[in-house]
């Protein structure tokens, strides 16, 4: 009994256990329900709603970011294909013009060669005609000379 009368109080003492205990327990249980409806539920709703909002926004932002990256990659490939296409067109045009130039050059060369040949042939024929005439004249002349010499005798 020492414990129950430890501090010399006339009744009770430090370890005086009585109906305070169950009533306090009931009070704490009641407080749990009151705090649940006044504090834990409303604050929890707000906090969890916000957490959901934030995480949704993060997910949405991540989705948008990945979409942007995809579009960027798309654009990049498009740009590259456009660039190579342009290069191809330019080189094709270059080849084409080169070919045309070469053809024209060849044509011109041929023509020039042809006219040169023609001129040469003409010159040749004229030369041979002139030579023929000359030799004929020389023949005539020699005949004349021969005739004269013969007649003088």
């Amino acid at each position, binding site marked *: 009994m020492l414990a129950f009368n*430890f*501090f*010399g*109080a*006339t*009744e*009770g*003492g*430090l*370890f*005086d*256990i*009585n*109906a*305070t*205990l*169950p*009533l*306090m*327990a009931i*009070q*704490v*249980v009641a*407080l*749990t329900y*009151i*705090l*649940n409806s*006044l*504090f*834990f539920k*409303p*604050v*929890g*709703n*707000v*906090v969890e*709603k*916000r957490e959901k*909002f934030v995480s949704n926004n993060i997910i949405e932002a991540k989705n948008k970011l990945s979409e942007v990256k995809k579009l960027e990659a798309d654009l990049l490939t498009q740009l590259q294909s456009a660039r190579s296409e342009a290069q191809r067109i330019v080189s094709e045009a270059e080849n084409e013009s080169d070919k045309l130039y070469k053809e024209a050059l060849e044509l011109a060369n041929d023509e020039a060669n042809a006219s040169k040949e023609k001129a040469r042939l003409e010159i040749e024929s004229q030369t041979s005609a002139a030579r023929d005439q000359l030799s004929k004249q020389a023949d005539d002349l020699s005949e004349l000379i021969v005739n004269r010499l013969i007649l003088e005798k």
Partner: protein
Amino acid sequence: MFLNSLLTNFAALEVGQHLYWQIGNIRLHGQVFLTSWILLGALLVFISLGTKKMENDPKGLQNLLEFLWDYIRDLARTQIGEKVYRDWMPFIGTLFLFVFVSNWGGALIPWRLIKLPSGELGAPTADINTTIALALLVSLSYFYAGLSNKGWRYFEYYVHPTPIMLPFKILEDFTKPLSLSFRLFGNILADELVVGVLVFLVPLILPIPVMFLGLFTSAIQALIFATLAAYYIGEAVEEHH
């Protein structure tokens, strides 16, 4: 007897005296209920003010209450586990808030200025009835948590690693509420006594650091009580494989 006479000399402290309320056959410690009603009333007013206008963009008191809520959720979640912590969060939070408000209220408010016919006002947690009530609620809770979550398989916990553990685990069911209640009771009462004795002997300056230490102890005790309660519940609902 020497100890007894020595302690009666500190009669000014009025240790172990109570304001008795007699209701029919039952006797109550009135001072415990008076202080707890004042402190819980203040807590409820504070909480109603803070949750009156809840906004998605928290301001003022709502910030503080959300911080408190988050703190309690973290405590419950780390000790009880992701699966059932939601069910027990209000109980753990109420234990924490009740013990914290009682301890700090007992340490911060100059109750001594209010004269009672017998006994004196103080922290409700400095009364053994309060702490035993809280500890028994914790015991009931972890039994209920274990049985409602696992049914009769809850008792596997008693022979969990080996059946040799059985007597120790049974003993634990008694030591858990005992240690919970006496730890809280002893710490808060000791703090009140130390401050009381120091104020009685040296009324100036010297008690102030002890009072700060008391505030620190009070907060730590609230955290310890809530953490242990959550840990016991977590232990009861934990699945063994």
